[in-house]
């Protein structure tokens, strides 16, 4: 008579937690960018998966087709994603915020469809392979030295460490730039663009900077997601990714970077743990059930803690 039996074996399994950790870390980085846009600047960027795709494909293509070293391709691809942020921002940031949201989602879909169909360049649905040789080599070295100090023999452990180190460095950096006069201008734009303009602030330039930085951060999160799977495929950049990023944002609370990290860990623990629900149902139904459970938890959160885990209620109520 098991109605909802969860086998708790998973929770004591190191591999399970490493897997969750990589995904949670990568999505936390993804959502850091969203937080800068949505939580601090008030620009509703629904195209984050598109910037992630541009970063990942740029890195992959540079390495595979042009023989650029993986380590050099990372900063180059990040710059390319940031340039894409500026390019899409130049026309789109002049629009009202709801139109901007629609344009960004269309942009992200254009990128994905292009990736799907430009087979010469991206490998289409077959995906792009072989960009991660340098990483694998490095990863095995790290794994060996970790094993030599008795830290297990986990294949994904070096990636986990890389994700979380990057996440922490980015969090510290972003906190520093947003808790500054620069960040104060962003918050003013979030509150009232016209007031910021009337006080001599070049609102458009700040929004453009915010979007470009978020695009770069989104690209970085993409590197970890594609390294995790060892290939790049258009399906990794569906709008769902952006929506999960927003779920992380809402869970963690607006205008808090640490909230984003907590939100990502909770979301991915839930999504991965619910895989182990043992019900007399088909695999597809269980997969759908996972999202129903996550949705239900989000609804409950909205009802009882609308500001999210670390968001400030006052800022939500007094915002308008």
């Amino acid at each position, binding site marked *: 008579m098991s109605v909802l039996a969860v086998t708790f074996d998973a929770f004591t399994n190191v591999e399970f937690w490493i897997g969750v950790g990589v995904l949670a870390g990568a999505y936390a980085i993804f959502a850091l960018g969203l937080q800068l846009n949505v939580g601090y600047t008030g620009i509703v960027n629904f195209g984050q998966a598109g910037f992630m795709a541009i970063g990942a494909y740029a890195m992959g293509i540079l390495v595979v087709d042009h023989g650029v070293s993986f380590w050099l391709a990372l900063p180059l691809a990040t710059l390319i994603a940031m340039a894409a942020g500026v390019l899409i921002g130049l026309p789109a940031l002049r629009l009202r915020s709801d139109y901007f949201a629609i344009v960004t989602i269309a942009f992200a879909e254009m990128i994905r469809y292009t990736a799907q169909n430009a087979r010469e360049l991206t490998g289409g649905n077959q995906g792009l392979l072989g960009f991660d040789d340098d990483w694998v080599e490095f990863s095995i070295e790290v794994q060996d030295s970790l094993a030599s100090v008795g830290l297990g023999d986990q294949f994904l452990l070096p990636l986990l460490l890389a994700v979380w180190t990057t996440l922490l460095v980015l969090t510290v950096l972003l906190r520093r730039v947003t808790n*500054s006069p620069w960040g104060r201008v962003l918050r003013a734009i979030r*509150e009232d663009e016209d007031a910021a303009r009337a006080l001599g602030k070049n609102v458009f330039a700040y929004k453009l900077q915010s979007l470009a930085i978020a695009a770069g951060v989104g690209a970085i999160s993409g590197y970890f997601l594609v390294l995790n799977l060892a290939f790049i495929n258009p399906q990794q950049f569906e709008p769902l990714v952006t929506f999960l990023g927003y779920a992380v944002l809402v869970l963690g609370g607006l205008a808090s970077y640490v909230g984003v990290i907590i939100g990502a860990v909770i979301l991915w623990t839930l999504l991965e743990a619910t895989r182990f629900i043992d019900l007399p149902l088909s695999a597809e139904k269980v997969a759908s059930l996972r999202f129903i459970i996550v949705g239900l938890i989000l609804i409950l959160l909205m009802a009882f803690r609308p500001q999210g885990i670390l968001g400030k209620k*006052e800022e939500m109520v007094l915002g308008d």
Partner: protein
Amino acid sequence: MTDTSPTTADPTARAAGDRLLDVRDVVKRFGGINAVDGATLDVVRGSITALIGPNGAGKTTLFNVLTGFYRPESGAVVYDGKSIFRRQPHVIARRGMVRTFQITKALGAMPVIDNMMLAAPHQPGEHLATLLFRPLASRQREKEVRARALELLDVFGLTAKADDYAGTLSGGQRKLLELARALMVEPRFVLLDEPMAGINPTLGARLLDHMARLREEDGVTFLFIEHDMEVVMGHSDRVIVMAQGRVIADGAPDVVRNDPRVIDAYLGDPDRRGAAS
């Protein structure tokens, strides 16, 4: 009513060099309606000038045109000898011409002190490059700015509210905050859109005192839209009257008060008034 030449109070006092703001034939159209329909006026350096007129006269629209928030169809706007016609609002504000809004724009989810500090000019920390590579310059300026902000909050009786969210302030306190914030920009010319509306007489008097003092001490020029005639007549050196998008009278408060065209604009044509009844 085709004669729109303003009644000039003192032509000698308005030589080109004395004019801080020079507005010529400005037209702003919304659809088929000319909200501002060829407005021509000037503001004398160091003056406190009132802009009055019945509802719908185009006063706020004119403010929006002057400060770059609306793009006018035609005309010319010269501020301090340089054209600011169709310039961006932030460019105009940086030249020292700063406005407030009729419906206050307090940044609700930010503390009062942050509202104030935001407005300060010349903060190197507002640029990412200097913020990252010269953090000390930013911190040094923050210190100066905070001191100045606290000083101004004290003048406007908002010291106790410094760390509260601006969204918790009353309507009147928001008006004061908006003026105090505009002053943080270190303006030479302040445009106030109905500064007295909704604030209690004590606070209102403090605001007017402060305007007079800023004019005396720092030579700041004021142009304000106001409906309270007592304030207009008692506290301005010059009154500009608008009706139907044009300037219909312009002069010293006493002169304007008795101008038949002004009375006409507010109350309607006396002949037609008689005929209608």
